[in-house]
């Protein structure tokens, strides 16, 4: 009987109290992050800053291809061996481990600038300035596209 009581006590502490305490404190202190870092445009939720979404329109930056086709439930990787003939040589053809990587490296962003400039009738330099402003080796696709829409 004794061990069972301890077992129940530990379950109550670690399985109920602990996750609920973290949830409660997060809800008070970090409500945005705890609920998925959602991004709004004109008052409408258009996605999460952290989760990749599919872009097909030439006026937007496109993310890397996704093994789960940007379906988040469940997340999935391609599981491709480097010995496989289909193993991609170019970054733009690689897939991430989560299938939901929200970022692309700078070289892949630069590659897409001419297409976007043409679709938006903008100067390529204007878009390049936008990309370089982040001063990171990669860009967040959704956030950058929202900035493009604001130009």
């Amino acid at each position: 009987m004794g061990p069972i009581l301890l077992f129940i006590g530990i379950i109550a502490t670690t399985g109920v109290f602990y996750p609920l305490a973290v949830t409660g404190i997060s809800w008070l202190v970090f409500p945005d992050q705890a609920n998925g870092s959602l991004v709004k445009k004109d008052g409408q939720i258009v996605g999460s800053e952290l989760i990749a979404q599919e872009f097909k329109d030439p006026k937007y930056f496109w993310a890397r291809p996704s093994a789960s086709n940007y379906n988040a439930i469940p997340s999935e990787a391609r599981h491709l061996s480097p010995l496989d003939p289909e193993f991609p040589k170019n970054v733009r053809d690689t897939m991430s481990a989560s299938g939901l990587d929200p970022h692309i490296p700078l070289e892949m962003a630069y590659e897409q600038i001419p297409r976007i400039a043409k679709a938006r009738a903008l100067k390529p330099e204007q878009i390049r300035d936008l990309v370089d402003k982040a001063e990171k080796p990669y860009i967040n696709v959704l956030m950058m596209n929202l900035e493009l829409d604001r130009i």
Partner: protein
Amino acid sequence: MHLYDFYLGAGFIGLLATSSPLLGAYMHFSFNRSIGPAEARLYRISQLSTAPMSWKQYLKALLSIQLMSLIFMMAIFLLNSKAPISLDLAFNLATSFITNTAWQNIPGESHLSHFSQMIAITTQNFMAPAVGTAALLALTRGIFQTDSETIGNFWVDFFRMIVFILLPLSLLLALFLVSQGSIQNLASTLEISTLEGAKQILPMGPAASQTAIAALGGNGAGFFSQNLAHPFANPTGLTNWVLAFSVMLIPASLAHYYGIQIGSKKVGWVLFSVMLCFFIAFFAISFLGTQQLNSLEGQEIRFGNLGSLLIAHAATATANGTMNIAPESLSPLSSAVMMFQMMLGEIIFGGSGTGLYGLLLFSMLTVFIAGLMIGRDPEYLGKKIQSAELKWILFALMLPSCVTLLGSAYTCWVGSTDKTLFEILYNFASNVGTNGSALSGFKFDSSSDNIMFGVAMWVGRLSTLIPVLILAGILSSKKRIESIFEVSTPLFGLLLTFVILMINGLTFLPSLLLGPLNEYASLLEKLS
């Protein structure tokens, strides 16, 4: 390699080397303090005696927790899941968490309810490492006590590891993860319309609390199928670095706890250094492999090359098994090193408690071999290593390797799989080593697989845990003789390193050559 990568790596090692002695000292304090009034009341309410136990009583108490966990988890999985789970799958899943393997056989976000994740998995993420640590505490007592019939009280060890060590650390880490973007809520899912107007369903739930204890405790199971690659679990390069550190922290600190407990901090430092040297050497080989391949396939951009490899390595050196990449897309050289770390018996930091007791078994074997070489009676810290002890040491070190190799051979023999030898070996090593890292998204699809790997995990866990408790009992009852073998010197560290390499090299070299190194040769040919 960029200078930035160098700072990242050096900072990681530096922080580990400075913080682990501190946590080790805190552990020593927590495990040895006298029972306070509040703690005493808890034991009284649960009707548990806090008197020291013999090894048999200790083992019985430990196994009763394992058994209760098995029944409880299987019941939860069978009764409360989003998709149907068969009995053999429930057995496999429950086993994988109880043995601290956390082999993820099903994607959590689509199959498990939040209730199951919290009540069944998060709780076991606390209990499994506490069980392993309790066994280490028992063995430590066996070494520093003399003429004693007892090896401590399991309930006290188990309770203190969870409440004084794991709970506060998890709470801090979970809140840090949330601050960086890891999700923590009780919503089920969220349907949104993307910028281009498509429908996307985002997973929701208490992810950060589970991610934190999975990293610290060594179970390593992800809230999400893609585990620490998932941006909702591991949102930034910084969280990736901190999570890698958390994976190593407790196993590293236990080495220092051990040193303080037996009265020689230097012994703790020697063990820590041996583990660290293995880790750095293996990491360097693996990093070379990724530089040769130079690809972002199966990796997340935000972690960078080094960060991607950091968790992959920390998680296979320790028995954690969490993953932030698709390991099969790495160069076979890198994944071979990761597999070898698991084959060593999870002793390079290893699991919580289990890693260090494995290394202590190797230490005893080392003094035995050294004793043979110089013609003296072998003793470890003044405790004679005689035939009964040696039998159990060898049993504990050899049985898991046998299961890995024979199991792989059997799987190849029946030929019912389209996996390569490397994949089969990796997955057996991972299950028997109670790691839980998976290559090629290796999923079991038959009930015989579920049962076979479930049994492999139990054998891997208990075939070292039970001998360790028996040894603790035998050593505890012994007298201490004057010690002539210095185990606190760099020379001993070197000797220990050679013994580990020799024993495991002889066991696994043929299979390494046939499996991963063969694939690596093909890759070099393809690249040239």
